[in-house]
């Protein structure tokens, strides 16, 4: 296990990373090697109507090519193979099997399911509806709650950075709108499901969640597909706005199955004054997945925990850009990701802490731990820090690990076979984050998925050991 660490402290340009490494860094230095940039508040909404936004996005769509992102160091994420002409965003009328198979049998506050291009199921605790909670398709929300939607829709999301983002903004249908009004506290999760049940689908998922002042709730998003042969696309846009004092735990469980599913999505969480968000995407599969995940502190006093885990297998390609952006201070940030890769999978994790001028008294830490489970798998972890304030601390650290053979031998000497020992190590590696989901039922779903992936990669992991 080797450690990577770096730190930047506004006043001293030196700080201790939490794992004990000490390093010096100059502001901006790290950005050279990186590929992506924060949206940084560049929302498209800005007073325009939905129709105007759709039209503008349509123009962008027509003029743009399918995106290809290249970073020096031989990393390329290309969506050029998506055959848009052969995909359709057709409607659907039933809940795909995979949803029933995956969602835990546990209480929920509300559930909304979109299959292909249509919302096929909406369910909300009537007691919550009475208290003003709204859960419906985004399409319906534009008709029924225009005053709630207009203020927030695409407030901080762009519509024209690439062709698929433009496609989403131009063509989305169905969609999800959740509004939890001021002071409403809900323990059980709101479940948002995007499912693809067959090849040939282009799904443009569009989610808007607004948490009123001092509301407190949970959102669990599931991105699921059946195991099919052939191509499908999910181009998603998710935005969550937490108003003053709101608290929200957001978890995302993504597993697009074994089909040739492309996912190019942007997710943005914006945290208001004294608000708090715990955000944990679990990215557990997809042929090619590119996620732009941005957590923005917009008002003083906000705090957040940005967690994430990923597990790439076989020939999967995963490209994650996670941003912890502080527009004002004082604020806190704590980013902690863990990822593993088997087979010939490729994963890239770019983590960025960005502290704007004036975001004084902000304290953040970013750590990324990765574990390679196959000699042909690759994980690039690229943390970076962009600081433009002087009374702040921002540091990062992490580890790059392979399986610890001495730990495996230790467990074998107690009677566990090699596969069981590997499972203990990998589950132990993810466990600190899985436990943070703070939801027994969802934790079990994640643990089972990790275990299944390990079982599938058993031979591969075996070969790895003997090859060294």
């Amino acid at each position, binding site marked *: 296990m080797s450690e990577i660490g770096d730190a930047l402290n506004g006043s001293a340009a030196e700080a201790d990373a939490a794992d004990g490494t000490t390093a010096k860094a100059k502001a901006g230095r790290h950005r050279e090697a990186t590929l992506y940039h924060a949206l940084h508040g560049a929302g498209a909404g800005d007073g325009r109507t939905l129709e105007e936004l759709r039209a503008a996005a349509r123009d962008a769509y027509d003029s743009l090519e399918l995106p290809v992102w290249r970073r020096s160091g031989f990393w390329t994420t290309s969506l050029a193979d998506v055959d848009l002409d052969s995909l359709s965003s057709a409607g659907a009328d039933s809940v795909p099997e995979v949803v029933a198979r995956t969602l835990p049998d546990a209480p929920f506050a509300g559930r909304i399911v979109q299959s292909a291009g249509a919302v096929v199921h909406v369910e909300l605790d009537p007691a919550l509806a009475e208290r003003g909670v709204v859960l419906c398709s985004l399409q319906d929300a534009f008709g029924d709650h225009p005053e709630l939607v207009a203020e927030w829709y695409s407030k901080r999301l762009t519509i024209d950075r690439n062709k698929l983002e433009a496609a989403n903004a131009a063509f989305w249908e169905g969609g999800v709108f959740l509004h939890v009004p001021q002071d409403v506290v809900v323990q059980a999760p709101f479940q948002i499901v995007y499912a693809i049940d067959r090849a040939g689908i282009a799904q443009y998922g569009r989610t808007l969640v607004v948490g009123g002042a001092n509301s407190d709730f949970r959102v669990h998003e599931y991105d699921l597909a059946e195991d099919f042969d052939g191509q499908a696309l999910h181009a998603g846009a998710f935005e969550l706005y937490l108003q003053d004092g709101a608290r929200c735990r957001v978890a995302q469980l993504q597993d697009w199955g074994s089909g040739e599913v492309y996912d190019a999505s942007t997710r943005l969480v914006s945290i208001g004054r004294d608000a708090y968000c715990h955000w944990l995407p679990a990215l557990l599969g997809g042929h090619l997945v590119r996620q732009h995940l941005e957590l923005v502190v917009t008002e003083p006093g906000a705090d957040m925990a940005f967690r994430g885990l990923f597990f790439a297998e076989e020939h999967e390609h995963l490209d994650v850009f996670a941003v912890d952006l502080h527009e004002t201070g004082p604020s806190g940030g704590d980013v902690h990701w863990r990822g593993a890769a088997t087979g010939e999978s490729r994963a890239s994790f770019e983590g960025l802490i960005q502290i704007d001028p004036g975001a004084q008294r902000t304290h953040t830490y970013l750590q990324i731990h990765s574990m390679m489970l196959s000699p042909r798998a690759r994980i690039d972890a690229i943390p970076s820090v962009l600081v433009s304030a002087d009374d702040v601390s921002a540091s990062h650290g992490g580890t790059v690990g392979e399986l610890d053979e001495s730990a495996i031998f230790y467990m*074998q*000497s107690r*009677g566990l076979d090699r596969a069981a020992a590997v499972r203990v190590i990998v589950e132990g590696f993810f466990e*600190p984050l899985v436990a943070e989901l703070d939801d027994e039922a969802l934790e079990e779903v994640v643990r089972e998925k990790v275990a299944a992936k390990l079982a599938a990669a058993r031979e591969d992991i075996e070969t790895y050991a003997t090859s060294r």
Partner: protein
Amino acid sequence: MADLEIKDLYVRTEEREILRGVNLEINRGEIHALMGPNGSGKSTLANTLLGHPTYEITSGSISFKGEDITEAEPHDRAKAGLFLAFQYPVSIPGVSVANFLRMAINAKREEPIQVKEFRTQLQHAIELLDVDRAFTSRHLNDGFSGGEKKRAEILQMAMLTPDVAILDETDSGLDIDALRTVAEGVQKLHDEQGLGALIITHYQRILHYVRPQFVHILMDGRIVLEGGVELVERLEREGYDQIRQEVGAAAGAVDDGV
């Protein structure tokens, strides 16, 4: 045939030969001490007995309960009833002592152990080794002190009820109270369950609490002296250097000095 039989064992790592013809027989119910200076190959022998992949057996054999296990997988040796208490136990983050023990016990059984039976056994072991209940919900060896690690090793030994256990310098790093607890635990498992043990140490301390019937002295990869507990006293008087000179002179064997 002895339960554990080591015959003319030669072991090397990539760099060099470490064991050069070790012969040793251990039965259930017997307590053996293996002593020798640092670097003489004690841990190498212990790890080789459990099948550590770093150590290559170039000749000789190991058999256990009549089966040749020279090439066996480590977990099969464990299931057959061998146990190693490590000199340097590694930490296993993310899994609690209790959960790990349950997995290890279940690995040996057809049917998973009943919750109640497991609890009873765990309680028994906890009392034997005088550890805190909370100890078993901590992650295995993760952030443990040296003494806690050694106790965790013996706790596992008590739970897994091996036929023959190898204790690799379990005494080092323990204060006198911890040493007594651990040693008495080993003695008790021997008395009650007929445990056979190979206690590896280069001090005499632990042997005041567990009395070995057989003592072997390992130097430069060979057993150069064998006897009863009187050997411990001789070692205490004379020290390794003098013994090395005597056996070296007598056998003319340890000639390539290390």
